C-alpha cells in the first residue's frame, strides 16, 4: 500500500507541473478566446532565455527578470503583428495561427540563445524528504513538493489579481464579451498584450521548474502536449479546472503506467510500456463523452 501511495503522490505532484503549463493556456483562452498552441513553445523560449542570460554571465535573479522582459516583449509583438490583424476571423484560424507561432518560436529561441541542452540550477534538489521517508516510508521528492507549493502560490496570486485588481476586472470583462468590454471603454489591445505577458510569466515559471528538473532542451515544447488533456478535462476556461485536471491526469497517468502494462502483458504477451503518451488523452476523451465541456468549463448553449 505504501507503494501505491508513493506512486499516487508522485503522480499528483507531477500533475501540478502539467497544471502550470495548462494555466498559461487557460489565461489566454479566457481573455481572448484564442486557443494558444504555442504555450509549450513559450515554456521552451522562457527557459532558454533564462539559461541564455546565465551563460552570458548574468546572475540568476537578473536573468529571470530579463527573461520576463523578453516574454513580455514577445507577448506584445504577438498581439501587434498576429492577433490584431486576425480579429473577426474564426477561432479555428486563430488556433492554426498559434501553431504557426509555435513553429516560429521553436526556430527563434535556439537561434537567439543556443540550442545545446543545458542544466538550470535554481537551488532545488530532487531528493526524498527524510522526515516523510522515515515516518511513513514513502518517497516524496523535495523538488516536486516545492514546485507544487510554487504552483499553488501562483494560482492564488493569479486568483487575487483577477478578482480584486482593476486590470483583473477588465480582463474578466474582456473574457466575457469582447464587444461589450470595448463599448464601455476597456482598451482591448492593451488587455490582450497584458494577458500574453501574464501567460509569458506563467510559461517562465513552468519553464524554470521543468528546465531545472530535466535540463533546458527542445523536449520542453512537449509539455504543451502534456497540458492538453489536462485542459480538456478541466475545461478551457477554468483556472481551478486546470489545477484539478492536472492532479487527476498526473495521478491516473502514473498509476496506469504501473498497473495497466502488466495486465495487458498477461493478456496479449509483449511489452506494453510507454502508455503515458496516449493514456491521458484517451481518459480525457472518455470523460468528455460524459461531460463535453470538461469539469469546470462553461456550458455551451447553441443558438441558431
Amino acid at each position, binding site marked *: 500500500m505504501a507503494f501505491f501511495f508513493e506512486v499516487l503522490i508522485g503522480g499528483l505532484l507531477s500533475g501540478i507541473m502539467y497544471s502550470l503549463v495548462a494555466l498559461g493556456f487557460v489565461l489566454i483562452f479566457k481573455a481572448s478566446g484564442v486557443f494558444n498552441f504555442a504555450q509549450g513553445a513559450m515554456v521552451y523560449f522562457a527557459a532558454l532565455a533564462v539559461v541564455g542570460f546565465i551563460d552570458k554571465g548574468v546572475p540568476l535573479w537578473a536573468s529571470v527578470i530579463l527573461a520576463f522582459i523578453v516574454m513580455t516583449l514577445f507577448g506584445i509583438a504577438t498581439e501587434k503583428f498576429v492577433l490584431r490583424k486576425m480579429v473577426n476571423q474564426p477561432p479555428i484560424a486563430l488556433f492554426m495561427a498559434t*501553431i504557426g507561432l509555435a513553429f516560429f518560436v521553436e526556430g527563434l529561441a535556439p*537561434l537567439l540563445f543556443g*540550442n545545446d541542452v543545458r542544466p538550470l540550477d535554481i537551488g532545488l534538489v530532487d531528493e526524498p524528504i527524510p522526515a516523510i521517508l522515515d515516518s511513513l516510508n514513502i518517497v516524496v521528492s523535495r523538488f516536486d513538493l516545492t514546485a507544487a507549493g510554487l504552483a499553488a502560490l501562483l494560482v492564488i496570486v493569479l486568483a487575487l489579481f483577477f478578482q480584486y485588481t482593476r486590470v483583473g476586472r477588465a480582463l474578466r470583462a474582456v473574457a466575457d464579451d469582447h464587444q461589450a468590454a470595448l463599448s464601455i471603454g476597456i482598451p482591448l489591445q492593451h488587455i490582450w498584450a497584458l494577458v500574453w505577458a501574464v501567460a509569458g510569466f506563467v510559461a517562465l515559471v513552468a519553464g524554470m521548474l521543468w528546465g531545472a528538473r530535466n535540463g533546458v532542451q527542445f523536449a520542453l515544447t512537449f509539455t504543451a502536449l502534456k497540458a492538453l488533456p489536462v485542459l480538456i478535462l478541466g475545461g478551457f476556461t477554468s483556472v481551478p479546472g486546470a489545477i484539478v485536471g492536472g492532479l487527476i491526469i498526473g495521478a491516473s497517468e502514473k498509476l496506469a503506467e504501473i498497473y495497466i502494462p502488466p495486465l495487458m502483458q498477461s493478456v496479449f504477451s509483449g*511489452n506494453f510500456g*510507454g502508455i503515458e503518451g496516449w493514456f491521458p*488523452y484517451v481518459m*480525457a476523451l472518455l470523460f468528455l463523452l460524459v461531460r463535453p465541456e470538461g469539469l469546470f468549463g462553461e456550458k455551451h448553449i447553441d443558438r441558431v
Partner: protein
Amino acid sequence: MFYRETGQFKTSYGADQQIFPIRQDRIGIVLLLAVAFVGVPALGSEYFFSAILIPFLIFSLAALGLNILTGYAGQLSLGSAAFMAVGAYAAYNFQVRVEGMPVLVSFVLAGLTAAGVGILFGLPSLRIKGFYLAVATLAAQFFIVWCLTKFPYLSNDSSSGVISVPGVSILGFDFDTPRSKYLLVLTLVTLLALAAKNMVRSTTGRAWMAVRDMDVAAEVIGIRLMHTKLLAFAVSSFYCGVAGALYAFCYLGSVEPDGFSLDMSFRILFMIIVGGVGSILGSFLGAAFILLLPIFLDIVLPALSELLHLPFDGATVSHIQLMVFGALIMFFLVVEPHGLARLWQIAKEKLRLWPFPH
C-alpha cells in the same frame, strides 16, 4: 481575352451541371492531365519522380482527405498522419497475410480499414465540438502510433514495428521503376481527386458545408448530424488511408510507426491552410508549397550565408526553416486566409476581364 465564357450557352441540365462548366477550364484540365500522364514521364529524371513528384502526389491526397474533414465538414483533426499509418499497415497486412491479394484491392481495403478507424475516433465529434474535438483527435494520433509499435501482430512480428513492403505488381506488370510508380500514384490520385470534386458538390458535400457553417442550424433544416459527420470522418480517413498505403508501397518501401508523427499531421494541416481550406485545388497547391519550401530553403540559405559571409551551420539552417515555416503560416492566415487557391481564383477573375477591365 482567352478566358471568357461569353457565348457558351448551356442548353441541357447535363451541360449546366458538369464539373467544369467553362470550356477553357475543361481544355486546361485535359492539357494538365496530358502533361502529367505523357509529358512528365517522357522528360522527368529518376530523382524528380522519386523525391518530388511521388511525395507531392501522396501528400496532396492526404491533404485532400484532411480538407474534406476540416475544410468541408469543419471538424478540425490533428491526427491525419495516424490514419495514413493505419492505411500503410493495413495494406501491408493484407498483402502479406492473404495469398494472391491484388495490390489495388489491398489499397482499397486499407482505405476502408482507415475509414473504420476514422469512424471510431469520429464518434466523439457527436458530443464534442471545436477545440475539444481537435485535442480529442490527438488521442487517435498517439494511440494508433503506440498500438502499431507495441502489437507485434500488426507489423508481422518485425522488431519495433518497422515494415518493408513487398513490390507492387498489377496483372503481371511490375511497378518497380520510379516512373511506373509515379504513373500508378498519379492515376489513383486523379481518380480520387475527381471523386472528391464530385462529392463536395453533391448532397453529401452540401450537407458537410451546412454542418461546418453551423451544425445546429443544419440539424434544424433536417440534415442528419451523426450520419453527416461520421461520413466525413470515414471519407477523410479513406483518403488518408490510401495515401498512407501509397506512401509505404510507392514512396518509401519501408516505414516505421514513428514516421507517422504529430509533426507529419501538422505538415498536412499546413498544406491545407496554405493551399486553401475547403478547396480541392488548394490541397494540391498547398502540398506542392509545403514540400518544395524546405528544398528551396536548403538551396537558398547556404548560398545566402556565402553571400553575406555569415556562418550558417546545419542547426541554424533547420532553425531558420522552422521560423520561415511558422512565419509563412501566420502570414497566410493574416493576409490570405483562403490560401493559394483563392489567389488562383482572383487571378481567374482578373483574367476574365483582361485586357479590357471596366
